[in-house]
């Protein structure tokens, strides 16, 4: 009950606090520089210079508090030892370079990076094109989009069941092993098979992200002027040629945005690995490794922070490129 009151009062204070701030500060500004009287022109100009800061102020403040400060603090912590008691310089980073688990995570992240965005975008594009002009296309789209609504943890649990193992002879409750045994194969402990288990984890994210790619690309495909397609048909292009030479090039910008957006999701992948293997059997990734060092066993804030900084450095350029592409799309 107390929690409920806390939640409700937080919402009320938050929402009305915002309204009060924007309305009140604006009112105050108009009192200080009234837009009338002898200096009305000057006052309006001055108020116009201050007003944007009033509106942006809270956002800038909170973003700095919850984004900029943690980044700087993380970097600062990464220069200290495990409990932050002594300055160690770049030792944590040097240790990272030599650490086997870190290398494994880097390699795995690279694999995720290559496989997941590519497969998601390709499947999304195929799904978008195929569902575009058929009657039950919208139902198909809804089905493909639905995994988007499931949390990564939930998806991890669902797929863990699909990969579930029971010893040979017992009833297989895992879908994959059931299929394998139906065809006369031996049931496998899928999540422990090196390299394959990585791919199996990736499939979960592909399953989730395909819906996202499909929705965005479907909108882009519909935005292609119909006449250019008709002109290509008149020019003798086959359906495949129309798709690859006329449609895909025209939505290249959108494809880039989808690709990079998924890439960023992939770099941060944590929940799926955490739930399904917790980084064992050669499936470790950077985000999970960071979590391990930061919060598991005896926490090592220095090493955990160093991994976090590496992760951020990897994401940043892709993010910049993504925003650049998205802006180009808008134009």
């Amino acid at each position: 009950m107390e929690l409920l009151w806390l939640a409700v009062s937080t919402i009320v204070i938050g929402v009305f606090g915002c309204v009060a701030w924007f309305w009140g500060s604006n009112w105050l500004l108009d009192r200080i520089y009234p837009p009338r009287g002898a200096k009305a022109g000057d006052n309006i100009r001055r108020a116009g210079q201050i007003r944007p800061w009033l509106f942006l102020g809270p956002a800038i403040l909170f973003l700095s508090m919850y984004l900029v400060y943690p980044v700087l603090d993380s970097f600062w912590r990464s220069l200290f030892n495990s409990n932050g008691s002594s300055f160690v310089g770049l030792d944590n980073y040097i240790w990272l370079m030599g650490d086997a688990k870190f290398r494994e995570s880097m390699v795995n992240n690279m694999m995720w990076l290559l496989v997941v965005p590519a497969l998601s975008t390709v499947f999304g594009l195929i799904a978008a094109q195929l569902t575009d002009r058929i009657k039950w296309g919208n139902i198909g789209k809804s089905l493909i989009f639905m995994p988007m609504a499931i949390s990564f943890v939930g998806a991890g649990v669902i797929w863990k069941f699909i990969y579930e193992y029971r010893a040979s002879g017992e009833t297989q409750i895992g879908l994959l092993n059931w299929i394998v045994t139906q065809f006369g194969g031996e049931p496998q402990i899928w999540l422990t098979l090196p390299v394959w288990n990585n791919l199996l984890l990736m499939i979960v994210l592909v399953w989730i992200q395909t819906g996202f790619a499909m929705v965005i690309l479907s909108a882009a495909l519909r935005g292609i002027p119909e006449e250019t397609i008709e002109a290509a048909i008149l020019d003798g292009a086959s359906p495949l040629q129309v798709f690859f030479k006329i449609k895909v090039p025209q939505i290249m910008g959108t494809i880039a945005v989808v690709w990079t957006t998924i890439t960023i999701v992939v770099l941060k992948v944590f929940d799926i690995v955490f739930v399904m293997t917790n980084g064992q059997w050669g499936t470790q990734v950077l985000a999970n490794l960071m979590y391990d060092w930061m919060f598991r066993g005896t926490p090592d804030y220095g090493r955990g922070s160093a991994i976090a900084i590496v992760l951020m450095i990897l994401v940043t350029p892709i993010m910049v490129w993504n925003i650049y592409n998205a802006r180009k799309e808008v134009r």
Partner: protein
Amino acid sequence: MADLKLRHVAKSYGDVQVLRDIDLDITSGEFIVFVGPSGCGKSTLLRMIAGLEQISDGELQIGGRVMNDIPPSQRGIAMVFQSYALYPHMTVRDNMAFALKIAGQSKEQITAATDRAGKMLQLTPYLDRLPKALSGGQRQRVAIGRAIVRDPQVYLFDEPLSNLDAALRVATRIEIAQLKASMPDRTMIYVTHDQTEAMTLADRIVVLAGGGIAQIGAPLELYERPSTEFVAQFIGSPAMNLLPGRVKTVGATTLVALDGGLEAEVAIPTRAGDQDMPVNLGVRPEDMRVTEGTPVFESTVDLTEALGEVTLLYFGTNADTVPIIAKLPGIHPDLKGRRVRLTADPHALHLFHKGQSLLYRDGPPPAYQARTAAPSGSMGSTPTAPDERGGDRIEEGLIKPVGPVR
């Protein structure tokens, strides 16, 4: 040689029939224009010829071959779209080369063809640009170039000038006319709602209305001998005036008693049984002139529009009926509110009964010959010396324009 034949062609979407029973013969090398009000199916007909729309019923032949189920690219046609439909990710040269690349032509052939088309359309400096770096007129030229490189037997134009501004439209129209002149054996089919384009470009105009062909003919034939009230009012601007009345005297020329008491003599023959038949007298605004004698129409000017070279007089703008419009050459500043009497040459008048022209009721009239002294409308089959034309309307009339008549 690519003659086009359409036999009983029809198009329906589900239960809705948009085109029915279209019969049309187009000879190789003709410039045909489809006109009609919006929604009359003119673009649909063009797209059926192109193969972008399925033909619901009937037969389409190009060069003697039935084309109903032949894919668009094998029909020997090329199409220019209203929105240009350029491939935005390809340079001008690649846009023009696309069809040839698909057809598997060699690099040398493609370069030669695109160079030639670029030269023809003054696009050489722009060959390596993307469409977005071109102006509207240049884009439409690229679209035309894309058609030219394929060297089709039949060119299809779907309102190609509608997206251009007025000045560019005139310039591009002339370019299309020159293009046609440079390829006399190529057939061109052109859809437009713009009368000027239809009148200036066409060898023959096909007027479409209500899902069928209203009339086919040379531009001036449609202007001077429209077969229906619809065509009469559709061709010519402002539209032809229709004055209701009854046939009073029949014979080689007909006397019509108009509602309101006036009479008009019309150089169209009527038969004995036509006595007292209700008719609409058609008179074009530009055929009306001021007279002191017996008028065909008399009323007070409600409104004038001075266009410089002509002045438009509006009568009956307040009434529920369509206003009557007269077009007088020159500038007439003081006519508003004055009562004027207007007449027209008997040969310039039209008679319609139930929407159909009386000229056409015994089948098509004898082969059409344009009046030699158009557009004054003062002559019928008897040509008159040029100095008489038009002059009578101005000099003889009571109302004289201010300043010279251009």
